[in-house]
């Protein structure tokens, strides 16, 4: 589904990713873990066109998308729920979700039933249903996080990139978010999940990649990584 080969990217003269290769198979939940500054967010930003890769290939459905502007990549079916939520603060919750379906409403993606999907999101995130007419800027951090996820899902994406969906949430909300991610996996949504809570991420994922200083240091089935002593020591803590 999504394949990355020798991806080199960064910001201006600062190179962050030094030749990254990975893939996300259809229907799989793949997680990318690693410490702060390892390049996880940069990877997602390069995949969705928020930054322009310097070299390397990124293929979606076999077509090279590296270097395309983000709106073109989204229209090919890749949705990105970015770091920091980035909801549209002066639009209502419902309108934020409508924006997630923009390519479907304007003919660059199969339309499907947008209204039904909107209802589906409100069923998945009842808190958003209660606040559907409220401006997104007035939501709490946790609600904004849910909105960002739901908004990305409104694309009916072929691949969904999730950047730290648990960031800044209370423990109860964190488990709620992970339960939602597990539900999405059940319904075979292809996902690439970047998480700081490595243990929780490996618990829900099929496959995992471990990043260190812009390079992969380990990879394997999530269960195997969870039991890998080196990974445990570095990212999962001994308490797991």
């Amino acid at each position, binding site marked *: 589904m999504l394949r990355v080969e020798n991806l080199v990217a960064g910001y201006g003269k600062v190179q962050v990713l030094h030749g990254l290769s990975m893939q996300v198979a259809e229907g799989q939940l793949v997680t990318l873990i690693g410490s702060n500054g390892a390049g996880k967010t940069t990877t997602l930003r390069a995949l969705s066109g928020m930054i322009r890769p310097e070299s390397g290939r990124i293929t979606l459905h076999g077509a090279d998308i590296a270097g395309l502007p*983000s*709106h073109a990549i989204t229209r090919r079916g890749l949705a*990105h729920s*970015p770091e920091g939520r980035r909801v549209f*603060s002066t639009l209502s919750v419902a*309108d934020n979700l*409508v*924006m997630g379906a*923009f390519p479907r409403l304007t003919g660059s993606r199969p339309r499907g039933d947008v209204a039904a999907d909107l209802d589906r999101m409100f069923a998945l995130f009842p808190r958003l249903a209660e606040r559907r007419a409220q401006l997104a800027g007035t939501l709490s951090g946790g609600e904004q996080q849910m909105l960002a996820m739901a908004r990305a899902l409104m694309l009916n994406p072929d691949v969904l990139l999730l950047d730290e969906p648990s960031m800044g949430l209370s423990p109860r909300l964190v488990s709620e978010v992970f339960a939602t991610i597990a539900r999405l996996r059940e319904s075979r949504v292809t996902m690439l999940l970047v998480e700081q809570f490595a243990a929780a991420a490996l618990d829900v994922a099929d496959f995992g990649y471990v990043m260190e200083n812009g390079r992969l240091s380990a990879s394997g089935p999530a269960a195997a990584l969870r039991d890998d002593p080196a990974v445990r020591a570095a990212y999962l803590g001994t308490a797991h």
Partner: protein
Amino acid sequence: MQILAQLLVSGVAVGMIYGVIAFGYQLTFATSKTLNFGQGEALMLGALVGLTVASFVGYWVMLPIVLAFGLLQGAVVERLGVRPAIKSKSESGWIMATIALGIIFKNLAENIWGRDDLKFPSPIGERSIEVMGVRVLPMEIAIVAGALAMMLAVELFNRRSVFGKAVVATANDRDAAGLMGINTGQVITFSFALSSMVAALAGVLVAPVTLTGATMGSALGLKAFAVAIIGGLNSGLGVVVGGLILGITENLTGYYLSTGYKDVPGLVLLLLVLSFKPSGLFGKKTIKKV
């Protein structure tokens, strides 16, 4: 009392023109944090093109043609002057570029329509109506109605249509809008087109009550810029209030002090706002949740 009422009424008409041009400044500032400093020239071109087109097809058929011309002219300004500057992340390139394009448009107009001021006939008569002893030109009423209708139409478009919401989304967060599949470059071009369209309409509205010529836009564009700062570049309809304040104080100063000081109060107000409330009288301070 009679005189005061008279001054207020004509102040409101001029003020609405300032307000609607300032509204145009807001449109491009919202999406791109840049302005078209040739906005006054967009207004002037709207008036002159309107004058010529109206002589062939009549006033009412001319209106949609001028609106379309405004859209096109604004898109050209964005493509030639603003996009290259945004692309190269130039801090001030767009300022010079839009001023330069404005001067070019002015010279072009001087060569096509001459240097003399022309008469733009009013479509709804030039005889003033007396309301309780105050003389009101029909065109002054049309200015207020036309300006309000235009701003309302843009607001409705932004709130109700999918494309309008995409404009608001781009204004909120350009990168995130891109992730929604919105071509934000096109949205910015569109906002410049819309902004010039608003100015072109303002030109057609104001032309019958002022002189029409290549230089008519410069002062209006500058004053509307002051209004945009006074009202706040992100204040929504706050610019209408800003425009009315300026239009009325100008008229009052012109009458009670001297026409020589007509432009002073507005500029003093501009300086005061800049030093005490830089986001404008009605501007929102942006709060970012972390």
